[in-house]
Each structure stands twice: as structure tokens, then as C-alpha cells.
């Protein structure tokens, strides 16, 4: 018979808000975000570390939140798509995805936007090749990607001087 599994206390910041929680070790970061914190903007696509729909930023680095346990985010700062918008104003990346029709069904979009956020944080003027490399871990089955490239280029333009 299985013994009761001990829950682990963790502290983390999600979109700037501090949380102190006790979690079962097997809870994935994406489940913590969606089921425990009600941040349902982070999506689960393939659930097998392929599609990148669950991408969030962990201390600024894009990670697949379906491939991390929540206990591993102890002490970390997590940014989800909900954290991109500031005081009711869309982030330049969000605006550019809308303006350039960088989405159709929208399921993969939050993941793409967070991969783009990591890219644009480090590289203010990425080439198309660099954009392709940065979003190679995100799968979109609607757009054919062309408008996603355009959106990220547009976002880089919009973020100039920001």
C-alpha cells in the first residue's frame, strides 16, 4: 500500500504576485498554474514536451511548464501570458500578434508569445533566422507560421526604445 506522500511547501512569484503553497511533488508546473492558481492562459497541447503550448518564463527563460514539477519552481519568478499585459494595456508582443493576424484558433499563441518574449529580451532586432530558431519549440497547426514571424518582427519594431 502506498504511504501518504508528503506535500512540499513552496514559495514562488507568478506575474509579480507572491504565493506560498503546499503541493504534491508530482504536480506539474502547468497544473499548478491552471488548476491551483486559475491562470488558464497557459495551455496544455501535446503534454509530451513537443508542442510548446505550455511555455512560460521561469526567471526569464522560456520553459515547457508540462515538463517541470511545481516543486522545482520554488523560489522562482514565473511569467505567464496573463503577466504580459500591464494595467489593461496589451504588451507590444500581444498587440503585434493581433495586428499581424499571427494567430487563428489561438491555442498555441500564449506559448509563442512567451518564446518571443525571451527572444526580444535578449535580442532587440532579431533576423528572420533568429526568430525561426527561437520559436522552433512551438508548434502552430493553423497559421503556417508566416504571420507569426511578421508579428514578432513587428513586436521588435514596437519595442524599440522601450
Amino acid at each position, binding site marked *: 500500500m502506498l504511504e501518504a506522500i508528503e506535500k512540499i511547501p513552496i514559495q514562488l512569484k507568478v506575474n509579480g504576485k507572491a504565493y506560498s503553497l503546499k503541493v504534491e511533488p*508530482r504536480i506539474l508546473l502547468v497544473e499548478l498554474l491552471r488548476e491551483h492558481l486559475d491562470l488558464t492562459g497557459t495551455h496544455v497541447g501535446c503534454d509530451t514536451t513537443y508542442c510548446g503550448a505550455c511555455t512560460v518564463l521561469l526567471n526569464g527563460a522560456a520553459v515547457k511548464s508540462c515538463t*517541470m514539477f511545481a516543486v522545482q519552481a520554488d523560489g522562482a519568478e514565473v511569467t505567464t501570458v496573463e503577466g504580459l499585459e500591464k494595467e489593461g494595456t496589451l504588451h507590444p508582443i500581444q498587440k503585434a500578434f493581433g495586428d499581424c493576424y499571427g494567430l487563428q484558433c489561438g491555442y498555441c499563441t500564449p506559448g509563442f508569445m512567451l518564446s518571443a518574449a525571451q527572444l526580444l529580451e535578449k535580442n532587440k532586432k532579431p533576423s528572420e533566422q533568429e526568430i525561426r*530558431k527561437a520559436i522552433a519549440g512551438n508548434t502552430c497547426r493553423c497559421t503556417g507560421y508566416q504571420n507569426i514571424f511578421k508579428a514578432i518582427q513587428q513586436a521588435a519594431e514596437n519595442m524599440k526604445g522601450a
Partner: protein
Amino acid sequence: MYPRAFSYHRAASLKEAANMLSQLSDDAKLLAGGQSLIPLMKLRFANPPHLVDLNFIPETSYITEDGGQLRFGALTRHADIESSAIAAKIPILHDCAAGIADVQVRNRGTIGGSLAEADPSGDWAAVLMTLSTEVRCLGVYGERTIQLSDFIRDAYTTALAHDELLSEVRVRTPPKGSGGAYLAFKRSAPVYPTASAAVQLTMEGDLCKDASIALGCVALTAIRATEAEAALRGQPINDKTVNAAMEAARSVAEPQSDMRGSVDYKRTLVGALVKRAIGYAVRRAGGEQVEVSHIYA
């Protein structure tokens, strides 16, 4: 998908992690980057009752240069190696780090985890086999150093005892006049390669003084293509010798037919990758800066 329930242990030092492994016996697995282990646990191919998390141990992620050797802490992420000026001194290391899976996986996955997992399709083993590489292993009773060729024993099997862990990877800087390249052929970024080839050549004028060639994904472990090396060693690099090396690489490959391709397809592919990688290696040995990236189908 939920993995089966497990108990979570956070080690504060590598020594403590080894002690935990010793106490928990065969039931425990180490959690490094988790980019292979967590998917396996979610699919319930792996069901460890205990996980020992190494991610909170300080000073396990570093890249240093010391006496002609590069040293990588076991928990050094692929992304850190990709952006490291020290690692870039051995271009084949950068080829590998910059091409593994995708940005997200490179941000989490570790060089130590990749070697200790010993997946036949992993990237690091093939690359590091072409260089003089040793791994430091830490157990309850102390540390030992093992050549990489002795460390990897079989598919998913290493020389590590159940209460031992990989603490550091040490790579000797190749001599002057040496150049290398690593090419992996993938259907898309996040997947394992269909086949891969790592080539490191030391040139003296037009002659190839020394050659090391390793192949990935085409046997139960990454393998050295020693006949292919012999076809180049002491020879000028020309169509005849390169074709001989390519043929030898094809012969030594023992791929399995799967969704990534048939046996014949993979043999042909790995030969072509060797040929291309030789071309890049020669140019780099001559001091040329060449950008090499993985090939997507």
C-alpha cells in the same frame, strides 16, 4: 498526464544526493533537467518511488578552463553552453549545445543529465566521444574519474553505481590545427535526431594527422567509426578518402528501423552527414569561422 506518485527529496549538495541514493537503494532516480525523465514518468515508462532533485545544489552549473581542459558542472544547461565564450573555443561543443531540441528544452536540459541518461539518440555522447573526455563520478565513498568511452556501457546504461552520480565533465582542448563539426538531422526541432555525426580532424597542411568520428542514433550507444577514421588518418582530404570514410561510417552503423526511417535510409543519411561534417571540420581546422547548424527535414 500525472506521473505515479513519488516522494521528493531535495539534495543540498552532491554528496548528500549520493547519500540519499545509497539510503533509498535502487528505488530512487536523480532529477537534473528532467527533459527526458519527466516525459518518461508522465507516460509511466519510468515510475521511481523517490526523486532526488539536484537543481537546488549550488555551484553545479559552471564552465571553466583549467590547464588545457574545459570543465562543465553536471547541471550546466545546454543553453549556458550555447552562449558560453569558453565553450565556443571548441566549436563542435557549440554546434551541439545550440542544436539540441529547442530553446525551452535547452534552458532546462543539462550536459550531465544527457550523458548519465545514455540515450542512444542523445547528442552529447557522440560529440564528446570525438574529444578527449572524462567524467567525474561521485559516490558515498569518494570520487573517481572515468573516460567517457568506458562510462557509456550500453543503451541507457552507464558505469555509474546505483549510489553514484556524475559530478563534472572534463574535455581536453584539441591541439592547434584541429577542427570539428557536429551535424544532426532532425524532422523538427523538438524531436531526437534521425542520425547524427561528429567529426574532429587535426590537419597538418593538406594531410589529416588525426581523425575522430562518432555517430549518434545508429546503434545502442553513440559509436566511434574507427574504420572511417583510419580512412582519413595520414591521408590528404579528397573525394577518394572522404568517400572511403563515408562508406566505412555506413558499414559500422547498425540503425533500427522505426518511424524516423528504415535501416537503409539511416545508413545513407549517416554517411552523408559524415561527409558534410568532414567538410566543415577541415575548414575550421584551417582557421575559418563556419556556422554549423542541425539540419531539419
